[in-house]
Structure formats: C-alpha cells, structure tokens
C-alpha cells in the first residue's frame, strides 16, 4: 500500500468522522441517546485514525511509539460504543444504565493502564520496534498476554453488537433492513480489516483505513435512510410513550422488548424483564393460565381480562398477535395491553345509572298504579259510604215522617215537636252527607265531567220548575231572564251545572225574606257566557266575601241554626265551576242582596266536527 493511498484513506475517514460527529451532535436533541453514542463512537474512531495517521507521518521514532500508545485510548472504546449503540438502536435501553456501562468499560480502562505502564511488565507488548515499509515506517510489536485479552474482549463486544443488529434485521420492515445493512457493513469492515491485520501477520494495521468504509456506510445510512431519525424517534414516540403496554416475545415466549406502560403489569420484583420468560415476569399470565395457552396459540387473540393490582381491580384489553418471519414462521408475538379500567368503570356507571333510572321509573309506574288503585279504592269507599249512610237515614226520615203524617195515630204537641226536630236533624245530616261526599269525590279526582251540547232554554226551564216553588213558598218574585243573543245550545256538563245553579238559587231563596230571586243567562263576551243568580236578601259582608267559598264558612255560626245548610255548598259550587273551566264571582252588599255570577266558556262540541263548531259560532252572530 502506497503512502498516498493510506493518507487519502485516513483523511477521508477522518473527514467522514468529523462530518458524522457534527451531524449527529446537532441532531442529538431529536435523536436522543443513539446520536450521542454514534458521536462518541466516531470520536473514538477519529482519535484512533488521527493517532495512526500521525504515527505514519511523523519522522521521529519516539513520537511514532507515543502515538501508537495513545491510539489505544480510541481503540479500546470503539467496541464499547458499538455495543452501546447497538443496544440502544435495537431498543434494549434497559441495559443502558450507568453501572453496566462502567462494567463494560472495566477491561478498556485496565488496557489503558497496562499500556501506560507496559515498560514495567510487558503484559501488552513484549517488544516494540519501528519497521520501515518503503515510503514510510510504522511501529511493530510482539504482543503480550493482555493484548489478546483486549482483542478477545473487543471481538466479543462487537460480535454481541452484530448479533443484536442481525436479530433486528430479521423481520424488520424494508426501510429498517436497509439501515441495518448500512450498520452491519459499518461493523463488518473494520472487524475484517482488524482480523486480517492481527492474524494475517500484516505489519501495517489496516483497521483505521477500513474506517473509511465504516464512515461511508454510516453516512449513507444517515443521509439515505435517516438512520438516527427514524428508528429512535419512531420507537420513542410510538412505543415508549404509548399509553398501551407493548410486549414483544420471541419464539420461546421470552420478552425481547417492553415499553414503560407494559411494565405496569409486571411483577414488582422484576426489575429487568428483558430475556426472561413471559410467564415468570408477568404475573397476570400466572394468574390467568388460559392466557399462557393463548399466547402459545398461533392465531391472534383478543379479550378483556380483569387483574388485581394493589387491591385495585383493573380491566385490560389484551391483544396478542403473532409475528411472522419471511418464511411465514412464527418468530414471536406482540402483546398489547390497554388499560380500559376507566372506560369499564364509566360503562359500569352508565349501566348502573341506567338500571337506577329503570328502577326509579318502575317505582314511579308502581306508585302511579298504587295511587290509581288508591283513588279507585277511595272512590269505591265513598260510594259505599254514601249508600250505607243513606240507607239508615231513609228509615229515620221515613218513620219520622210517617208519624208526623199521623199514619200512626195522633201525636201530642210535644211528640210532634220532637219528631219535627228529629226530621230536621236527619235532613241536615243528609245534606251534610251529600256535600261531604261530593266534595270528597271532587277532591279525589273522581268527579267525571261530561261535555255535551244541550239546549239552554230546556235546561233553564227544568231549573225553574224545581226552584220556583221554593221561592214562591216565601212569597218572593222569581224572575227568569234568557238573553236572546245566546246560542240555542251550549257545551258543558248540564247536570253538574244544574247542581251548581240550583245550589245558588236555593241559597238565594234561603237568605231572602222579601223581594226577588232572579236567574239570568246572558252573553258575557265573544268567548264566554254567564249565569247570574241574584237576590234582594241579607247580603254578605265584605269580610266574609273572600272566605265564603271555603269549606264550612258561612257568614257566621248563627246562620246555620237560622237557615240550615252545611257550609259546603259554595265550596262545591266553586270547585265544580272551576272544573268545568269557568269562574265564579260574587258581588254583594249587606242589606242590598247578592249576585253570584258564573262565567262559562263556549266549548267546542266534542261529538261534532270542527266545521259544525264554526257553524255554531256563526249562528251565534246572527241570532
């Protein structure tokens, strides 16, 4: 080899090294530890190359010997950095801890120490001289025992690195394969050169020259395949920072890769799971023997499993997919764990809330049924009560009246008086029973109103027939007025409305001693009509006007004794009117009589169509 060729090779190697160092150093932020390790490796290479170049160039023998010794500072660390890089590159980051790195550096430091003190023990070099190779001269030596230790160690590290890279090569995507080819070339070149130098009795060490190939291969890989960009970044982002646990197993179910999330499911005692059998590391596998079987099964598997961690229950979504090599043989498996505890919990919560709603709904339905049943029961009770109270009253009133009628013979005045009182009280009791039951029925919501069309004049006539007698008995004028503007028929519940009006009329007669009782049916406005019942009676003082529609509120206590009545009539009247969609008003002055006015809405006849309802409206206009 000519001096020029050697110098050019070494020059190129050094330039490439410097380029790589600068390149990866500027990239170290994004590329992480791989970049730092490549930089360290290239610095060691650069040192080695530089010392070797200097050894060849310098004419001074002492300097040649010195640079030969200094060269080893680079030489010893090249295999260490190679291995560290290979570990980092293939994702075995768990090995890159300080005490392991220091352990790896133990022999290199010893080597450096022995080289520095070789003059005293010749363990590294037994003898050292300078050999002239024509244009130039280099050092040559007979190696001592430690040199072989050093060489063996270096080869062992490089072989390990190659093994990891080769393992990675198998079953990697094409892009990574090319990266790996570049790396393997970069590894192989100096190894082969070194082997030739040592075992081929080559005086000139061609290893530094072969670093040119290394530099070229790495540069090629770096530029062409983003050697440092892709793998670490992709792996970091996708795997390391993944929320899902990723566990890669080889064909023998040993863990070859694991990300931090997957470590959460690992036994607390296991600090370093790489290389260990999955069954001894992941206790969920021992907890769930079926999983082990699934892991061994060649097909993919996916399921949700529950595990206990520190007394907490976790739910994991586990997917196991086999990894195939080029020959479609299963080369390992990837297990992905996803913690779906929160999702499950949320689902559970939604489910239980849903269940709760269903239960509440069911309760409500039951409560409604119960309420309906109770209303039904109450209504039945009221009907029975009414019947059972009336039946004995019929006997009381009947027997009393038979005696009063003289059917059982003549009564003494006293007997007659007492029988009259029995009768009056029985009749009052009957009124009370009627009213209380009516009121109860209204309040129980069992007063069913019917809506039907009825003839106003006929309806009014029926009322007049029943009430005229009552008024005329007290020598009162009974006045009736029917507004001709009113429609012939209206829609309401005629019976209930009649009950209301009769109640008002009988009150009017009851509380009027002279003058008149009057019923008047008239238009109110476009939407309503009115029934007024007025009298020229006692009148109701203003303080009582507000409470008179309440239960058991008569004007005063003496009223009942004087005029009878239950005190419930007006309460029933008002409730019925409101139920029918109407309203009742009272206008009264003490001594000047009272006027009760019921305002009733015009309702559409439910039995007729909308068209005829319009026709009724029109008729009302024309009448």
């Amino acid at each position, binding site marked *: 080899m000519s001096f020029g060729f050697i110098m050019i090779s070494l020059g190129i190697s050094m330039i490439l090294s410097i380029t790589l160092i600068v390149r990866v150093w500027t990239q170290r932020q994004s590329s992480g530890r791989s970049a730092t390790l490549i930089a360290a490796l290239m610095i060691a290479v650069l040192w080695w190359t530089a010392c070797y170049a200097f050894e060849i160039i310098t004419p001074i023998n002492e300097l040649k010997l010195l640079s030969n010794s200094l060269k080893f500072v680079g030489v010893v660390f090249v295999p260490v950095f190679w291995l560290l890089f290979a570990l980092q590159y293939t994702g075995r980051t768990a090995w890159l801890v300080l005490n392991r790195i220091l352990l790896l550096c133990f022999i290199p430091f010893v080597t450096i120490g022995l080289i520095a003190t070789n003059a005293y023990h010749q363990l590294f070099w037994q003898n050292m001289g300078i050999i002239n190779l024509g244009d130039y001269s280099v050092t040559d030596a007979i190696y001592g025992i430690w040199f072989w230790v050093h060489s063996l160690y270096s080869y062992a590290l490089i072989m390990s690195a190659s093994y990891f890279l080769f393992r990675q090569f198998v079953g990697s995507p094409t892009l990574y394969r090319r990266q790996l080819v570049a790396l393997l070339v970069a590894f192989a070149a100096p190894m082969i050169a070194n082997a030739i130098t040592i075992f081929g009795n080559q005086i000139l060490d061609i290893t530094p020259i072969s670093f040119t190939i290394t530099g070229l291969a790495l540069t090629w890989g770096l530029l062409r395949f983003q050697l440092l960009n892709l793998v670490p970044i992709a792996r970091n982002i996708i795997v390391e920072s993944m929320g899902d646990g990723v566990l890669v197993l080889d064909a023998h179910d040993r863990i070859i890769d694991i990300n931090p999330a997957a470590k959460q499911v690992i036994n607390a005692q296991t600090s370093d799971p790489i290389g260990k059998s999955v069954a001894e590391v992941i206790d969920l596998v021992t907890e769930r023997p079926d999983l082990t079987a699934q892991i061994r099964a060649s097909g993919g598997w996916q399921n949700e499993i529950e595990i206990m961690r520190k007394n907490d229950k976790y739910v994991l979504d586990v997917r196991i997919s086999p990894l195939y090599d080029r020959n479609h043989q299963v080369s390992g498996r990837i297990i992905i764990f996803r913690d779906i505890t929160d999702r499950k919990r949320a689902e559970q919560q939604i489910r239980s809330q849903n269940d709760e709603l269903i239960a509440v709904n069911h309760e409500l339905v039951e409560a409604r049924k119960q309420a309906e049943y109770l209303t039904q029961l109450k209504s039945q009770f009221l009907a029975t009560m009414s019947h059972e109270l009336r039946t004995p009253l*019929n006997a009381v*009133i009947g027997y009393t009246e*038979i005696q009063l009628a003289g059917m059982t013979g003549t009564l003494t005045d006293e007997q007659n008086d007492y029988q009259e009182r029995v009768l009056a009280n029985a009749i009052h009791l009957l009124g009370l029973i009627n009213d209380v039951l009516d009121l109860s029925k209204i309040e129980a919501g069992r007063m069913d109103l019917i809506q039907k069309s009825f003839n106003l004049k006929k309806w009014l006539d029926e009322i007049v027939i029943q009430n005229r007698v009552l008024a005329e008995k007290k020598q009162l004028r009974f006045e009736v007025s029917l507004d001709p503007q009113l429609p012939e028929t209206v829609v309401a519940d005629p019976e209930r409305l009649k009950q209301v009006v009769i109640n008002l009329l009988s009150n009017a007669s009851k509380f009027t001693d002279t003058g008149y009782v009057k019923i008047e049916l008239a238009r109110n406005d476009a939407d309503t009509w009115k029934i007024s019942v007025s009298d020229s009676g006692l009148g109701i003082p203003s303080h009582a006007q507000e409470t008179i529609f309440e239960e058991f509120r008569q004007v005063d206590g003496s009223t009942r004794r004087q005029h009878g009545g239950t005190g419930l009539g007006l309460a029933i009247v008002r409730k019925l009117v409101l139920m029918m969609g109407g309203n009742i008003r009272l206008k009264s002055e003490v001594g000047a009589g009272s006027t009760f006015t019921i305002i009733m809405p015009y309702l559409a006849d439910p039995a007729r169509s909308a068209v005829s309802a319009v026709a009724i409206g029109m008729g009302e206009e024309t009448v």
Partner: protein
Amino acid sequence: MKNTLMMPHFRELAWGETSKWTVLLVDDEPDNRVIAEKVLMFGGAKVYTAVHGAEALTQLETISPSFILLDLSMPVMDGWEMIKLIRSDERTASMPVIALTAHAMAGDRERVIDAGFDGYIAKPFRLGTFISDIKNCFRELVTAEEGQAT
C-alpha cells in the same frame, strides 16, 4: 226509548189515580219496605213486596204490576241484574221500572237510566213527595216521548 204505545199507560200512571196502582216493591231492607209500602198503601195502591230480584221475578210469573220499585244493592239478585232480565224477557220488557236506591252520588242517576230503568228516586225519599216523585218519573217519560214523537 220506549215504544210510544206505552204512552197511554205512562200518562195514566203520571196523572191517574194512585188507588189504581199495583206496585211490586223490591228491597232487602225491611225498614225501607215498611215505609214505602205504608206510603203507597196510604195512597190507595196495592203493594206486593219482594226481598230480592229472584223473588220478584218469581212473583212476576203470577202478578202484573203497574210498575216496579226496584232497589239496586240486594243479596241473591241485585237490581242491576234484575233489570237486565226484565228487559230481556219480552213479557216484561216494557214493564215500567223505577230505581229506588241509596246510590245517590253524582253520576248514579245516569248509570241507572243507562241500565234500562225508566226512572230514579234517591233514598232517603220524602214522604210528602214520594208519590209525586214517582209520578214525575212518568211525566218525564211522557214529555220525552212526546218530544220524540213530534
């Protein structure tokens, strides 16, 4: 509605002499029977009594009353069942039947008329108006039929 051929009969009952009445009184309560019977007999009517529907139906095999006063709640056969049987038997289908009942809550009158009764008198009835109440039932029927006829 009743056949208009019934009208002369109703008219007679409504405005005619009480002494011409033959009444079948059906009530399980002895007191009610005594009182109603007493009042009717006082008016000159002939009164047959029965304590429940089944007994009344047996009586109807031999007698032909002017009308029936029928209680509703009774043992053995109640008024509701009896009116059904009366109306479904052509011999008695046009027999005037008035309910005499302590079912006197709102809506009871309508239920009674719907069941096929010709009239409704609530208990307790008043002695002074009992006869006229009965007559009023017939008057209403006559008025209704006249209204229908025109």
